[in-house]
């Protein structure tokens, strides 16, 4: 269980391109952080670094539980990632994908457990044994979310989770995020859909050209988010 994440002066260079400069942030359990910014601002890179799969060129990220640091597998076990891509195999069905990842995470992955999870994300039962490449964008997104939540992660990283979902799906996902927060997880959401996260974030961070230009804590309604975004994201 990750209770605290401390991002210290993290920078990332890709060859000659600098994607991030000296970003520092602290994330705490039971809080949702919205990471906002234009395309190319470095949000996805920061999520990559948080997921441990991108090595920062400068600075460091520390994961801790009860004051003790966590590293390696122990951190990865606690991370749930919903990325741009589905991270699921198109040639396998939803159930097979989840069974595979369940076995790799060594969490219960019998049919009942998987069906319960698929019910939660709202993937219709008759699609569950079909190959995932035949799914619609919204169904893929639900499967990807199920994969991210499969291991009951305590650090949930979501990259544009609302794309491809209809209004109902987006609402459902919003509720899921609320439930995750209530269960004590750290949630980081990268999104352009301010409406969908309005009232659901405790912490807003805005990136612009690889730098952190604003960090504010509190409750934000739609207008407040929109105002912050337009004033700082450029």
């Amino acid at each position, binding site marked *: 269980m990750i209770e605290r994440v401390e991002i210290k002066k993290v920078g990332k260079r890709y060859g000659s391109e600098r994607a991030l400069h000296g970003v520092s942030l602290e994330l705490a359990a039971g809080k949702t952080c919205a990471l906002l910014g234009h395309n190319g601002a470095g949000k996805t890179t920061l999520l990559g670094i948080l997921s441990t799969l991108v090595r920062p060129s400068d600075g460091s990220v520390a994961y801790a539980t009860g004051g003790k640091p966590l590293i390696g597998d122990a951190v990865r076990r606690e991370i749930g990632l919903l990325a741009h891509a589905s*991270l699921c195999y198109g040639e396998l069905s939803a159930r097979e994908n989840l069974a595979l990842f369940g076995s*790799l995470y060594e969490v219960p992955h019998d049919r009942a457990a998987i069906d319960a999870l698929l019910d939660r994300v709202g993937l219709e039962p008759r699609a569950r044994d079909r190959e995932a490449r035949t799914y619609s964008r919204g169904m893929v997104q639900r499967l990807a979310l199920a994969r991210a939540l499969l291991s009951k992660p305590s650090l949930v990283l979501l990259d544009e989770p609302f794309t491809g979902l209809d209004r109902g799906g987006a609402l459902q996902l919003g509720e899921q995020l609320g439930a995750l927060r209530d269960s004590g997880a750290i949630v980081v959401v990268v999104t352009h859909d301010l409406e969908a996260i309005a009232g659901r974030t405790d912490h807003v961070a805005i990136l612009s050209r690889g730098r952190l230009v604003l960090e504010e804590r509190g409750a934000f309604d739609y207008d407040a988010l929109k105002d912050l975004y337009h004033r700082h994201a450029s």
Partner: protein
Amino acid sequence: MSVLRQAGRIAWKDLRVELRSREIIYTMAFFAALLVVIYSFAFPNKPDVVRAALPGMLWVTIAFAGTIGVGRAFDRERENDTMRALLLAPISRLAVFMGKAIAIALLVLSVAAIVAPLLVLFFNAPLFAEPGMMILVIVLGASGFAIVGSVFAATLLKVRSRDVLLPVILYPLLVPLFVAGTKATAALVADDPELATAWYWIQFLGIYDAAFLVLSFWVFESLVIE
């Protein structure tokens, strides 16, 4: 132990996906068969010429078809960024590497299992005069190819020009492997099979595979993490 089990799960996943689509195996096998047909026009079909050219035909085919297979097997991990999912899972990266390498070795072997009989058929070649040792040579060669191929295909996963760079990297590095395979095969198809020579090159392949397997364990993780 659990590393091997996790590697087995990943390899089994690859094979299941492949059995479902059969894309890699069909295209690799067709390509390999075409090469054999081309050889039969390119080289005069005389017993002495065939005997001299046969080892080269076998290993060039394995190299070409194998490159297609290893490239495509990792393309699949790129399509939905599933490589990221594997690297993110709380398992050793060795398991990821081994799982992919095992699956690719099996793909290459299945191509060899098609090419070798075709060579025998089209050229009436004595490829399996010493079946046990010949199979050992092919297995060792395919494994070495899969080991080095997996490391670099995984490293190149996000590189745009990966399709041209993969052979640029693999062939210079794999020259000793292909030469050893060719020499061992040549010794085995000789009129009077030179078992001692073949055995020398089999040992060479074994040591080559072992050295590069250890090296891959050691560098795979630092190569695939951005």
